């Protein structure tokens, strides 16, 4: 069962950390978590994938949904800490150029961005 850890940094960036597999079971919850953050005024969101074992096309769809939700609110959704399987999915789908993964949470929204 995939779990989600969430926090908000001192800089006001929302961090969502899916733990386990980001698949059709977990994807709707990821969408809901991003929507909750945005509704609460946090439109800059990092999805920290460092504890995500694998991601399928449903998980990818939830990231695209989150990207749209945050940008519509004037923010952005960025990825951090993607492991080799998630990197492979981003490359195979050619969506790495859209969801540009960063090495870690700290570099996802540099100070002043």
């Amino acid at each position, binding site marked *: 069962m995939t779990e989600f850890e969430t926090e908000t940094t001192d800089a006001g960036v929302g961090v969502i950390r899916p733990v386990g*597999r980001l*698949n*059709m*079971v977990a994807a709707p919850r990821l969408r809901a978590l991003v929507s909750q953050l945005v509704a609460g005024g946090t439109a800059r969101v990092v999805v920290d994938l460092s504890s995500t074992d*694998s991601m*399928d*096309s*449903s998980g*990818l*769809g*939830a990231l*695209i*949904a989150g990207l*749209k939700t945050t940008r519509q609110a004037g923010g952005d959704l960025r990825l951090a800490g993607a492991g*080799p*399987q998630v990197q*492979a*999915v981003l490359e*195979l*789908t*050619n*969506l790495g150029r*859209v969801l540009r993964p960063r090495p870690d949470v700290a570099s996802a929204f540099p100070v002043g961005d």
Partner: protein
Amino acid sequence: MLRAPAGPEALGPVHDLLAQLWAGEPGIDEPARLRFETAVAEIAANIAEHAAASGASVLELRLRGLPDRVEAVFEDDGGPVAPGPGGWPPDDAERGRGLELVRAAVDALRYERDGGRNRWVVVLGR
């Protein structure tokens, strides 16, 4: 072989079966394993997602290592699968990438309708 209800609850056992396959296939490197696992998980999810609509109740999965390839064979008892348009959807699409992802990840994907059953074959060459 795995035989499980055609639903999301089959996804965990699919990963367990993959782990068993790799235990007997030390010659396949990590990037190739990840691509095959990605493809197999995607087909399993595809069957699970459409099970209710297609009437599928049971999913079967066989994984095997052959001299020139590793292969996953899925069978389910759901209705026929209508082929999609093919090709990648637009960047902002939230659905419709599953089968394209499979085709990109492995060397071959086949779909057959056989005796009232659906069969998906995922092939990774050595």
